[in-house]
């Protein structure tokens, strides 16, 4: 099990700020993204967003990063207001 966190407009679009997600190791961030995309909208739009940022265990990450049980994967976009 890993924890998924959704921030800002992703959270609003999903109406969800976190969820538990079951993985089978070996598993990368990209694998989780592909599985989430299979849920259809609004995951598809969110995960296709070219501005999507990723953090694994509170450290900035790239899609090729490997995940293990208990990890936390956060999805967040840049925001620009001030």
């Amino acid at each position: 099990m890993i924890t998924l966190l959704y921030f800002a407009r992703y959270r609003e679009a999903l109406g969800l700020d976190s969820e538990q997600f079951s993985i089978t190791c070996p598993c990368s961030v990209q694998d989780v993204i592909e599985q989430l995309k299979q849920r259809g909208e609004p995951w598809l739009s969110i995960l296709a967003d070219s501005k999507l940022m990723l953090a694994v265990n509170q450290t900035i990450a790239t899609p090729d990063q490997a995940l293990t049980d208990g990890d936390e994967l956060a999805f967040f976009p840049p925001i620009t207001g001030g």
Partner: protein
Amino acid sequence: MPSKENLQLSQQEQQRYLRQTQLLSFGESGQLKLKQSKVLIIGVGGLGCPAAQYLTAAGIGEITLVDEDQVSLSNLQRQILFSESDIGKNKAQAAKEKLQTNNSDIKIIAFPHKLNPHNAHQLIKRSDLVLDCTDNFHSRYLINDICAHYNKPWVYASVLGFEGQVALIKPEHSCFRCLYPELAETPNCNQAGVLGVVPGIVGNMQALLAIDYLARINSNGEASKSNKLQLIQGLNSRSINLFKSDDCQLCRGEKTYLDYTSDYQAYEQLIENIPEEQKISWADFEKFPAENTVLIDVRSEEEHLAFNRGGINIPLEELGGNLRIEVGKRHVFYCQSGRRSQLAHIKTLSLESDSISSDKRVYSITEPLLSPVEKLTSP
């Protein structure tokens, strides 16, 4: 070099700052460091107002406020430094007057102009710390690039809706381009809304980071070896460790602020030359007769496929010989934020004869395009 009067606190200052000098980790030495510090606040809006209020009250020796905008009624919901009687006044000037009434012991400078590559150098070079309280990525990249050049730390912050982001960026650890490498054209508060208290909280976090850094309190324990991005979501937050990106040309030394600022300056100058009536909204576009109008999406193919509002797709960088200006037809460019559409506009005019522009047949939509995700969440 601190002047003689900056080496000690006056009796009045000892009294004024007593509640913070009482703190063991701050003390009189922390107060003196604040007194000797120069802070540059760029943008005196939702973030800049609260940050400036607390930094003024805390006794920063010199604060410079940069903003070319005027106070408007729709600002008052979150920029609570301002009153109804300030509407129409320049924000930097109005803020300076208000702030100085709280603390006459410090120096406050109002700079009522837009930040540009030239003044950014002058302003940043003489500051100890820069607060990014702007509402756009152009300004943030400019601040980043010049701060990297002078190795000045700066505090990035942004807000939208119920969310905020804030980070103290020390150029030696990583830079803003490492985090957000491309111009992220996303809606700002004017387009997508913000709950007033959110910039209040985030602006105060900027002030706290500033005081922590300048007084060397190190409230985070040992001096951090990486920059940290705080993601604030309502009452929850997450701290994300940031690292230098292998692809960051600025941190790799392959590019300098000059490479980026020349683009910026050229762009600013060129878009000023586009007549106002050729910068249109989506509503204006809808009024054009469809049979005489060619709509062109100048974003990348990937962006076009993900979401579009019709028309043909010619990415900005490919625009050139493959676009034939058809006589008697209107040509309308669109993109995500309005930036690339205006660049396409300029590029097309430079490729075509003068008759095109005088004929007013080229337009750019300067209004942001909201993706399905953004549409779902905008008010």
